[in-house]
């Protein structure tokens, strides 16, 4: 599972790196729409408040095995790279395009009825509690930019932080690959 998801991350990163080629831009938005357009039965059971509570009560101990967090692995999702200024919620201009790409996908009719969870992840450099707070604020900054600059309805967006509790490269928790943004379809807007 994690290998497959990781491959998705790489694919998108590679496609974005080829910016300027209309074909690959098109493909990556389609990829986002197609991946996030699949509906999982488990989506309606996701409780965002419980996710926040679980991760806050176990800083430094990981979240993958916690009851609510382990459910996330079954949902349609995507990992993207969005870069921030050091220790800040300011998104680097170099990542504006990725935000726009997510906005294109979220405005597509196939995804219009769904709500999405934005999960921020950091690598393990620094204090676990600080990482958790920073990743939550960064996820909120992404949701805010999507809902204001790009007019995605705010009731479709939920933002939480995972800090350094769910590294994609568990053998190297300080690796830069662990800094990423996870985007999940969490079911129909009520």
């Amino acid at each position, binding site marked *: 599972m994690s290998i497959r998801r990781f491959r998705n991350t790489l694919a998108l990163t590679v496609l974005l790196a080829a*910016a300027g080629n*209309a074909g690959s*831009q098109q493909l990556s*938005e389609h990829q986002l729409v197609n991946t996030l357009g699949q509906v999982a039965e488990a989506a309606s059971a996701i409780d965002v408040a419980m996710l926040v509570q679980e991760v806050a009560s176990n800083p430094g101990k990981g979240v993958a095995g916690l009851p609510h967090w382990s459910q996330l692995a079954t949902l349609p999702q995507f990992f993207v790279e969005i870069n921030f*200024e050091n220790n*800040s*919620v*300011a*998104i680097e*201009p*170099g990542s*504006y*395009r990725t*935000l*726009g*790409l997510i*906005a*294109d996908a979220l*405005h*597509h*009719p*196939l995804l*219009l*009825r769904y709500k999405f969870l934005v999960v921020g992840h950091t690598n393990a450099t620094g204090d676990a509690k600080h990482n958790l707070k920073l990743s939550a604020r960064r996820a909120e*900054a992404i949701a*805010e*930019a*999507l*809902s*204001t*600059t*790009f*007019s995605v309805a705010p009731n479709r967006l939920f933002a939480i932080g995972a800090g350094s509790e769910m590294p994609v490269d568990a053998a190297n928790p300080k690796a830069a690959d662990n800094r990423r943004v996870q985007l999940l379809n969490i079911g129909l807007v009520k």
Partner: protein
Amino acid sequence: MAKRLSVLSGTVLIAVLAQTGVGQTQTISYADAATLLAKECGADVKKFCKGLNLGNGRIKNCLEQHQAKVSPACTSTMAGVIASIQLRLAAQASVDKICARDAARACRGVVPGKAHILGCLLKATRIVGAKCSQAITDAGWR
């Protein structure tokens, strides 16, 4: 319209002109709008708006506050990008209405819902008229 086009960067402008028929309203994707903004304003954002985020008009306000020092290309691009996002939003909001008659003719019996109707309209190229077809293109849903 001419004003909006004039602020787009050269490459995009050429691409836009290559794709459009005469007199058509052309929209660009949110990704392309964001790319333009980063390209023309990225350096000014890093210089004058450290720690500020894109959301809630913060970058726009910051660049306006520093307008005397911000590059003219950035100032005009910022206005163009905001206009192009609004244009794309309006195009997406207008598809239902513009395509209602074509959908009623071509998509009878299709499961209700925006996505299903769009899928039907995209396939029914013989029935769907030029206006609806253009609306779908302007919405970026092709």
